[in-house]
């Protein structure tokens, strides 16, 4: 075949029936990067819908984590005597609930992304990963926009804010990698096996308590703490708390979190590429 030799490589679109995902593992990320404007467009559209269409706009995106934080604060400091987490507990809660909101929202929406956008997927030739990446980034931007609320509460409660606050950057990167991996894995599977969407919701509900959101990993007693140490969210949440709670980070957790996240991304992307052909027929 001489087809690949002529013309600019970027403009040549070759699709073949072999199971191999094209020339080189980087072909798909490169194609995605090439169409980054489509991603930017969709993310902007999501944010516009989120913040411009309703009067409460911004408040909506922080209301749920704020309410949850309030409830947990009430239950664990007023009803029970709190022995977990760290002081100030409300800041501890928010620093866990805001990233959790991103994680949960991104995984739920990404899992059904190909299904909800079926019409666009069927009529637009953009790399199909776009539909998942768009969800992860939209939710990520919402997370970033909610950070001032966290800082506000940290100031109100006089939490010791220091330079470790910068660890929010690697935390956000890891979270993006993790949710992208989960989304790429789930999105094609949900199209083919519809009831998986429900499984995802239940798993997330359980996952909330299997993640150190309302408590820290060190609060978990012996046999169970392994589960939490293996949870990729542990490292990420610790990085989010590092700026307010000195000594919150256990680097072993962060290392594990990075390993799991990157592995999941590779697995997810492989499954996505492998199922793409089938998904396009079923959609």
């Amino acid at each position, binding site marked *: 075949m001489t087809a690949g030799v002529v013309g600019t490589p970027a403009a040549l679109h070759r*699709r*073949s029936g072999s199971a191999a995902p094209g020339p080189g593992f980087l072909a798909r990320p490169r194609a995605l990067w090439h169409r980054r404007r489509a991603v930017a467009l969709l993310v902007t559209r999501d944010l516009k819908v989120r913040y411009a269409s309703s009067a409460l706009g911004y408040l909506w995106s922080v209301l749920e984590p704020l309410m949850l934080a309030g409830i947990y604060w009430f239950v664990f400091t007023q009803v029970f005597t709190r022995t977990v987490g760290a002081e100030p507990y409300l800041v501890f809660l928010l620093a866990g609930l805001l990233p959790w909101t991103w994680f949960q929202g991104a995984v739920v929406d990404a899992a059904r992304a190909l299904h909800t956008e079926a019409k666009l997927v069927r009529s637009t030739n953009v790399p199909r990963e776009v539909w998942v990446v768009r969800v992860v980034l939209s939710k990520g931007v919402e997370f970033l926009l909610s950070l001032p609320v966290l800082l506000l509460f940290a100031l109100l409660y006089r939490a010791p804010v220091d330079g470790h606050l910068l660890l929010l950057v690697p935390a956000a990167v890891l979270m993006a990698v993790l949710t992208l991996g989960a989304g790429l894995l789930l999105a094609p599977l949900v199209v083919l096996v519809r009831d998986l969407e429900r499984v995802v919701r239940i798993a997330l509900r359980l996952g909330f308590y299997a993640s150190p959101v309302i408590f820290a990993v060190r609060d978990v007693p012996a046999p169970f703490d392994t589960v939490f140490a293996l949870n990729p969210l542990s490292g990420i949440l610790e990085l989010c708390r590092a700026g307010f709670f000195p000594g919150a980070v256990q680097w072993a957790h962060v290392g594990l979190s990075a390993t799991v996240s990157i592995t999941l991304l590779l697995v997810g992307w492989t499954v996505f590429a492998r199922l793409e052909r089938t998904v396009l027929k079923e959609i």
Partner: protein
Amino acid sequence: MGAPTDRAVISVRDAGVRFHRGRRHRSLRDLLVRGESGPRRDGFWALHEVSFDIAPGETIGVVGRNGQGKSTLLKLIAGVMLPDRGSVTVRGGVAPLIEITGGFAGDLTVRENIALTGGLHGMSRAALRDRFDEIVDFAEIEDFLDTPYKHLSSGMKVRVAFAVVSRLEEPVILVDEVLAVGDRDFRRKCHARMDQLTAEGRTLFLVSHSEWDLRRFCRRGLYLRGGRLVADGPMDDVLAEYAAESETNAPGG
């Protein structure tokens, strides 16, 4: 047939697409372990061993009865479906006028939809700014620019969609039955636009049941039957063959 020529803008080699009858949901194990390779008993080939090369500027009409693979072929070329066998190579981008209103979001206004669809199909911001007025004029939609897309009549929806997609600077244009919608005036405008595009040297791929359209726009014809390419030649000859076969095989679907 043979190797694809260097000049081909579209090169289809032994392309096959296999669909499954029924059994939409399958087991996770099947999917993860075996992928989508290996033939299945309950499947059928919507497209089978189709090969052809299209040179830049050619105008191709695709004929065949319903369900014989015409739309599947267009989807392969548009890149919104992938072949199970063989390969489809397209040099440059494709402006797909297929499932035409599908890419529009009902909740967004016409203005936002034009920007979104243009962008998703690869139109740059500058190009969009330049062509926005032209698109609005063509679609005759200036009074409804800030109306949500879902409130438009179906004719208006098609007009907007055609106006945007036909403004894409892509070397290949795919047109699937959109001309059947819309009133006579708009159809005339679409025809003029297609004439203009082919005169500029774009490659046109037209699926239609209108012999008149096919004869007017296409010089080369492809005839699909049962997913196979049974004729490839001058449009008039292909139409004659299609008509002859349609008469011998009494209508049934």
